[in-house]
């Protein structure tokens, strides 16, 4: 399991990236994070949904209740135009950060 603070710092980026392609509901987002991280990243309900609501308040994502045939209605979140810009910026920042960390922490070559 990754460090809690590290997870917190990357949570926004993860959620934005997951709803970039299409709208997803909370449980789906949670499972995708867990699956794609190989079980190393997990979000509890009490952390995931407040984060979704915060991103929604900022206008980066928008949630909408959608009812599908034979299913209960679910709240799907999709990326907004503003959220797309934020996602691009955060991706760049994260890439630079990771590269910097790697350059610092990587094995020194003789």
């Amino acid at each position, binding site marked *: 399991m990754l460090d809690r603070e590290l997870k917190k710092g990357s949570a926004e980026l993860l959620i934005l990236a997951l709803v970039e392609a299409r709208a997803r*509901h*909370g*449980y789906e987002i*949670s499972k995708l994070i867990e699956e794609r991280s190989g079980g190393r990243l997990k979000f*509890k*309900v*009490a*952390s995931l*949904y*407040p*984060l979704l*609501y*915060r991103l929604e*308040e900022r206008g980066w994502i928008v949630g909408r*209740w959608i009812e599908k045939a034979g299913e*209960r209605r*679910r*709240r799907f979140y999709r990326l907004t135009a503003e959220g797309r810009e934020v996602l691009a910026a955060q991706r760049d920042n994260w890439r630079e950060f990771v590269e910097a960390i790697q350059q610092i922490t990587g094995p020194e070559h003789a």
Partner: protein
Amino acid sequence: MPEWTREITPRLARLALRPAREREIVEELSQHLDDRYEELRAQGNAHAAAIQLALSELDDDISGGNLLAREMLTLRQATTPAPPPPGAPSQRLMADTWRDLVYAARMLRKSPGFAAAAILTLALGIGANTAIFSLVNATLLQRLPVAQSDRVDYVFNGGTWNTLSYPAYAVLRDGTRAFDALAAWGGITASLNADGDTDLVSGVIVTGNFFDALGVRAVEGRVLGRDDDLTPGAHPVAVISHRLWQSRFAGRTDIVGTTIHLNGGQFTIVGVTPANFPGPQLGIPRDLYVPMMMQALMRPPRAGYSGEQNPDLLKNPNNSWLFQVGRRKAGVSRDQALADVVAVTTNYLRARGDPNARHPRLTLEPIDRRRSGAAPSDAIDRAALDGFRGHRAAHRVRERRQHAARPGHRATPRSGNQAGGGCQSLAHHPPGAHRERTAVIDRRNSGRLSRVAHSEGFRGGTAARRRTADRARFHRRSPGAAVLAGPVTPHRHRLRRGAGDPDVAPGLLPGLKDETAPEPRARRVTLKKALVIAEVALSLLLLIAAALFIRSLQDRAVGRSRLRGGRDRLSAPERQHSALYDGPGTRILPASGRTHGAVAGREERQRRTHRGADWRSASDHDCRRGAAGHRRADAR
């Protein structure tokens, strides 16, 4: 499935979530826990263990505290207080107002037709109310800032606002002993040239005791005095209004002594009147005051004033053009003053051999009781009457005179046709009409009216006849203004009449005219409030009417659109109903080789059969109608 609501709701209780939002969150989290529970069960966990593990998602692993509430506490939606219930007093006035405004904007955007009607209605209502109230305020509610106004009266030759000639005025001024000062003025429009710019200015030409009679003092320099009214053409001085001083001369401090040109003649400004002094008549603001002795330059015949053929108006007894205002001596009652001026007038008319000497009429109107300015319809008329002079209305005048001369005639506005109210009112005010505090020697018959209308000099008959004729033509040609003047005319008419008249609305007249009113100021305030309330009520009435009208239009539009059968516009039960009918059509039509069809209810079927058609032969048009009895089924 476990009941998660009982577990989630208490955890959200400490947050200030709105009830609707809280229900949404509970529903969303419950679904997540349902999915999590099924997942745990699928992994082989027992029911109780699965519930326990799912609920652990809501709490902190380390402290076991309410993690959900802690995480949500920083959200805006968790700290927004719930709106007060309907009817509860507002706790946050500005926030609530803003919310109301936003809501109103959304509703207006949602219904642009209603918004346009509402805005248009409000604009019209506010505009009309403002115009009417401004008019009423200017002509009925305001007072002239006159010192000791209870001693100051207008003195009219005959009926109210009848004029007289300068020689007649001079006789009255010199002969009466009831007044400290009896002044006269006439209206002028002068060409003002100063600093290279030329403007037309509305003013008055006044006698030297004009400002003494009114008790008005200058705020800059001095007002005109008796020394400025001695020799014709020898007093090129002027007093300007505070408004003109500020607007035309930018309030310059050296205004006194400034040289200007009026009608081409050089004048010197000697003073400025107070800001609250509009002139001798309310509703007709005057910006310029020049001495009477400058008449030849300031009011020449070529200026177009009616009936003034002689350039020397100061010596011509046949041109009536002056209004009078007098300040009674202390201790002299209005009745005594009236008797005095009537006596002087009688002697004057006798000396001239005027047949009216037997029946002289003069009117004294208190300046602070009677609305000194023109009555509402008068103001409208005067504002728009320029250029309406002519002789075609003479016929109209004769009609009025004949009507007034009928036996039993009463000066009461005719019912109906309020649009012509202004005209009617004037028609019912011939010089012979009965007035309060009017000395009438002979009221007997119509011959009196005829003589009055034709008398000259002291009678002012020509000017009165011409004004009446002009108003008659104006109302015929300008029905819009007549409509505006109509509603207020009856009130003006009543205001001019005696307090004992049974037609006069109780409570209205005393506050505006009757000197027996104990608290005229309070009455005026009451009238003001009543006007405001009436205007607001009228606006609301118009708004409600517009809303109902738009609503009815919308209902009709919605009814038509639903008949068109758009499935997106159907409610959930209607969609189910539609699907029920679509099923057979989808299955049967391909087998029958047809591309379109409709399923009709039994009653509709019978009706169609009776008409010689069945559902399979229903036309496209019938299918598209999509009425409740039959639904369209496109072949897919």
